């Protein structure tokens, strides 16, 4: 095994928790029954790595095989790392009938044409997701398996999920994707997050959305400590109303976990107090109309507002239902689940689509 393969294996064994190592190795099925039996998962990671390296040498496994193992691990744990969403645009007539074999062949052939040395592995998962692992090389160097890109796509949907695409790789990848899915263009969907399952559920509408109904049933009881019955009674009506509006804006039950929402504001200052007022109850010192420094500037005002949370949608819903953010929920916040985006550029013309590629997140 060459050095890259060794390093990849070492990194993998470090990453995979010992309890999961056994199942992952079993799925890999590159070890004989005897070899699998000889692994003692109570040993230290270092010992396990040495053992595994020896076995792989014995079986004459190459970096490509180790890459398989990594892929199995990533597919089982899609909520680690950072995912970015891209959207395919303008389907051709036959886009809806693209099937797996055709897509695999086309993607591999197009990408190999665009870049000389590239290693592509495609695997279909049980939930209909097509997983692609790409190790990039160039005219002079072999594919670098230590910095792969993962791509996930559901056929017949316009969404593509990517990990860490560099600015050099993006156009090549975009080209190959567009050609093999029979669409005409691809753009940044301005949605990103750590959990693939969360952003996928958001875009595929796989969470509980709430719509106005004729007979609104009381939403599930919240466990709240009632401090004062009189206050509770007075506030019950408006609390229920806020809760309904919050749920209509963000959803009910468990919401897909997004970690942040970023609003990049570029406005001429006359509009400044209004634009910040759009965030309703959020405190900002620029609300002072008499503040001449802020209201009499020549250059446009630029700022970036970032909301961060372990579960952003849950937090926003709670702010709306508890009254921190006023209801009806401002479209700036409700646009996150409505449009399936968490990066917005707001100019004097109001919130518009971001035409640039998203800047790298800190």
């Amino acid at each position, binding site marked *: 095994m060459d050095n890259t393969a060794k390093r990849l294996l070492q990194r993998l064994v470090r990453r995979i928790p010992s309890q999961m190592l056994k199942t992952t190795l079993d799925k890999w099925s590159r070890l004989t029954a005897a070899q699998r039996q000889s692994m003692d998962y109570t040993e230290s990671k270092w010992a396990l790595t040495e053992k595994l390296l020896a076995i792989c040498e014995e079986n004459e496994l190459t970096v490509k095989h180790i890459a398989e193992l990594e892929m199995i691990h990533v597919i089982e744990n899609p909520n680690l790392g950072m995912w970015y969403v891209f959207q395919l645009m303008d389907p051709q007539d036959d886009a*809806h*009938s693209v*099937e*797996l074999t055709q897509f695999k062949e086309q993607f591999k052939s197009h990408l190999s044409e665009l870049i000389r040395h590239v290693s592509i592995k495609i695997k*279909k998962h049980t939930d*209909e997701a097509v997983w692609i692992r790409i190790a990039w090389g160039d005219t002079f160097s072999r594919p670098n398996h230590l910095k792969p890109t993962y791509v996930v796509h*559901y*056929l*017949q*949907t*316009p*969404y593509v999920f990517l990990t860490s695409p560099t600015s050099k790789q993006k156009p090549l990848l975009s080209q190959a994707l567009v050609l093999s899915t029979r669409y005409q263009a691809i753009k940044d969907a301005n949605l990103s997050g750590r959990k693939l399952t969360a952003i996928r559920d958001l*875009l*595929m*509408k*796989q969470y509980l*959305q709430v*719509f*106005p*109904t*004729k007979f609104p049933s009381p939403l599930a009881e919240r466990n709240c400590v009632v401090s004062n019955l009189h206050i509770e009674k007075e506030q019950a009506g408006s609390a229920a109303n806020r809760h309904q509006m919050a749920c209509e804006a963000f959803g009910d039950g468990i919401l897909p976990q997004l970690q942040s929402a970023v609003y990049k504001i570029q406005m001429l200052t006359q509009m400044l107090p209004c634009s910040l007022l759009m965030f309703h109850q959020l405190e900002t010192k620029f609300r002072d109309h008499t503040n001449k420094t802020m209201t009499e500037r020549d250059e446009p005002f630029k700022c970036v507002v970032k909301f961060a949370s372990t579960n952003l949608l849950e937090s926003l819903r709670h702010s709306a239902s508890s009254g921190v953010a006023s209801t009806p929920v401002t479209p700036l916040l409700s646009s996150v689940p*409505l449009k399936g985006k968490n990066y917005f550029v707001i100019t004097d013309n109001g919130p518009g689509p971001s035409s640039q590629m998203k800047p790298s997140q800190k």
Partner: protein
Amino acid sequence: MCALSEGVLSHLSLLEVQARSRKSRLQQQSRVMELKAKVEALKTQREQLKAQIQTHQVWGLMVAECDFRSLLACCNPLFFPALFYLLISSGGYDIIKTRKGKGACVSIATAYEDVFLDTFNLEIDLKPTVKINRHNIPPFIPLNNLAEQNNMQTDLRVFLDTLSQHLNAFAGRKQQLKLVKEKHKSVEVMESNVLCSLLVLLFTVPREKTAVLCTLDYTDHTRCLPTRVHLESEDKQLPDSPQWEKNCSLLMETPVHKALITMKKMGSIV
């Protein structure tokens, strides 16, 4: 000191009670006036509704003679609101008004073989133009295309009918796939997709244990049955045999989970 504050406080309480009872008397009077005005408004509304019913009865007579499509076309939510809601709900869709008549929320239920499946919702703006605001329809259903092709602006009911067809057919195909996986464990699902428009199954022939690969193409997304069935086998003669030609037509005409039951009974597959 205590007695003094008690005196002051009790005096203040007395004053408060007096003020309150004065206010409540005033409030009671204004409340009565409010209620009287409400009664008048409700009476007017009752007369309006009576008039509308009469108009509908006239419309009802006219409908028999005129073209239903042109009726739908002139059923603008701004001009004939009651008729508009009637036409939508008579299609079996739940529709409710939102935002004081400026919007509506339509629910489309799906069912297959007498089992209720998912319900899909669309929140629509009616003014100034008909536009879809929010929905929970999955991205592989071409909602925008359907809206354009069916002139959602002028023919909302027709658009909803087409959408419902797509959704019900999708729900039906999805349900069939679920049943195949549950009830036919001897049949392996080799390939499927989120739209359930393609299904590749692996059959095993009893005795010889030959493998047969069956591809079901559902290119018409408004239907629950395939438009094409293709068989492949290691035994080249097998797909052309009379028994398998029969199975082919069976799969074209019967939902797949039911077709498999028949095929098992006939001994074609394990």
